[in-house]
């Protein structure tokens, strides 16, 4: 028994080779106690029964219903569904909605999906752990559920470049007692009218590639089951669904470039300036984007400059800086790190730099490189006589301290 208020457990068992049905608790059986669904299959001599079966389970309560995605049960397997736990943990159903926390009673429905008839039965089990009393109840089912009245869902969807979403179908699942509920299905053979805007997999999983619009087309097979008096008969109906996908404009920094040459501004500092454009030529639209750098060193984090001869400094590895992308430009100053340490020896290390941007609406909000890798090489080497010099080079520019003090 699970749960905090586990006075009762109400379970449904699905026994292979028996028909399934509805469990209808009376109003005196509150849902606030644990409710479990158990699915068990008894192996059948006919090998076809040994294949896994899909099932649907749902809960109807006053003011709504809670429909789980189709599950699968294998021969000999018992599946238990604890609706109380789902309510307490606010587990979303196939439509993304949880059971409201104030729901204390309702009706549990279950059924098997597919053409097989008379293959399962349902068993409810009620347990009062306080009194140590248990009772069970099983019911037969008639024909399998019909899946009808399908339509694409969502009809339209808007999401940013790099984002992913599922297109599919919503359909009415009608059981043999004519009770109805809605459930989501993925459909098949999905295709995009404009793959450069939105790509989509056969199963309807779409990825936004660039701003614009695309129509998504998918197919779904409705199935209708009816009892002709002696047996269940079925017919199917193929439907086509059309959904619209919109990827809103997402301006991003582009044409990142160095302005002028790198310059030695003294004291061993190498200075650069950079600018960029907006992909839609309106820089103010980049107000949610950043432009910046990542610099990595071959070594630990923090990276400590090899000292001596370099200054004994520790820097984050990687070093990351970001700036508002609406700015007209950035400068980049590469210094020596401080005071050099004697005794001087020949030494060198390289940092690797990328300039990059980040926009929430692009690449899933992850960084996108603008340029790189760029090597930043710092060297201490012999100079004239017994003296030593410091050199830093990047992108063909150099700054020096010669001689080192």
């Amino acid at each position: 028994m699970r749960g905090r208020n586990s006075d009762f457990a109400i379970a449904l068992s699905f026994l292979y080779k028996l028909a399934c049905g509805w469990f209808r608790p009376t109003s005196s059986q509150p849902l606030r106690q644990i409710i479990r669904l158990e699915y068990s299959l008894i192996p059948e001599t006919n090998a076809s029964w040994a294949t896994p079966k899909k099932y649907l389970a749902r809960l109807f309560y006053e003011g709504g219903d809670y429909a789980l995605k189709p599950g699968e049960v294998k021969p000999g397997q018992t599946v238990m569904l604890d609706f109380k736990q789902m309510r307490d943990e606010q587990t979303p159903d196939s439509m993304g909605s949880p059971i409201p926390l104030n729901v204390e009673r309702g009706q549990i429905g279950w059924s098997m999906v597919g053409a097989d008839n008379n293959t399962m039965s349902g068993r409810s089990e009620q347990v009062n752990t306080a009194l140590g009393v248990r009772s069970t109840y099983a019911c037969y089912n008639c024909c399998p559920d019909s899946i009808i009245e399908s339509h694409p869902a969502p009809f339209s969807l808007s999401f940013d470049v790099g984002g992913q979403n599922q297109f599919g179908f919503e359909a009415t699942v009608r059981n043999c007692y004519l009770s109805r509920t809605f459930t989501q299905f993925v459909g098949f053979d999905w295709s995009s009218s404009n793959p450069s805007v939105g790509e989509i997999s056969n199963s309807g999983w779409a990825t936004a590639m660039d701003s614009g619009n695309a129509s998504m087309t998918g197919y779904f097979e409705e199935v209708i089951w009816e009892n002709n008096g002696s047996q269940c008969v079925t017919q199917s109906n193929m439907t086509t669904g059309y959904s619209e996908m919109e990827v809103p404009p997402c301006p991003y920094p582009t044409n990142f470039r160095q302005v002028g040459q790198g310059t030695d501004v003294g004291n061993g500092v190498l200075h650069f300036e950079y600018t960029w454009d907006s992909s839609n030529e309106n820089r103010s639209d980049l107000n949610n984007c950043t432009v910046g750098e990542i610099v990595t060193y071959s070594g630990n984090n923090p990276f400590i400059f090899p000292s001596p001869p370099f200054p004994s400094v520790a820097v984050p590895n990687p070093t990351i800086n970001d700036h508002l992308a609406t700015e007209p430009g950035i400068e980049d100053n590469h210094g020596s790190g401080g005071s050099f340490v004697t005794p001087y020896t020949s030494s060198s290390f390289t940092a690797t730099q990328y300039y990059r941007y980040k926009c929430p609406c692009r690449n899933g909000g992850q960084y996108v490189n603008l340029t790189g890798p760029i090597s930043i090489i710092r060297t201490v080497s012999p100079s004239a006589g017994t003296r030593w010099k410091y050199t830093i080079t990047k992108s063909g520019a150099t700054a020096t301290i010669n001689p080192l003090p």
Partner: protein
Amino acid sequence: MNKTITKFSASLLIYIIFLSGCGNITGDTQDFSSLGKQEIKSNLTDSKQNNNEMSDGVQISFSLVDSQVVLHQPVLVNFIIQNNLSEAVKLKLGQNYKQGFLFSVVTPNGKRVQLPQLTREGTSVIGDVLIEPQQTYTQKILMNEWIDFSSVGKWKIEGRIANPIKTGDEKIIKADSSFSVTLDVQGENTEHLRKVSDSLVQRINQSTGYKERAEAALALSYVNDPVAVPYLEKVLTPGKMVEQIIIKGLERIGDKSSVQVLINIISEKPESEIASLAKFSLSMIENKKSSDLEVKQMINQFLRSKL
């Protein structure tokens, strides 16, 4: 310039977190709403006291957003340039629009301290300001980036801009931008700091642009008190894009609770860039002389377990 560059180098070890804190240009004077002044009486300094009326029509003013704060509350100064001329004027405010300020303080015990210019290694916003005729440039300056107002009492803040204001044809506009204001730092008030922090979190959550989010995050990161840790943690979500700023705030606090948040960041996404930043901050806290021994042991134990 060389003097400035020397400071660049010196700042490398410290690794000051940046903020692209550029200002706004508007046709009207901005309405400055102060941070969390619900309980602390707001006594806005009359900016006219610090105005320097330019003969040629450019007005510069500095004023405290709140002249009365509690210990560890961010201290903000409004910086305004009003161009009443018929031509545009420009000003170089330097790296991240911060390098071009020269500040000094007189502490409550009467000691005068000249604050170094904010300079840094690596990338920064260039910080050139252009003010069209009849336009006003406004900027909020977070004074805690220059100094920690760590003691209770009256602080005098003085300063000026480092570079001249010029016209488009490089003509220097005579201007005395110097100012002096008095800040009253009152004793600890945890409840007030909570309100200030909460207000900043709301600004971060409600803002639609990176600039406002980053400004609010930077101010929150300077609520240098463990009371801010839960608020800093609240905005540590990738969509906010302010993780670096927040991690530096946690590093500044450097107590057990902030260290635990940094450890959690690393544990949750050990290979991420944000985890690298958190690891660097843990190392800085571990190597800080003032850090609590228990905190150092906590960090050491965690970092060694990751080896």
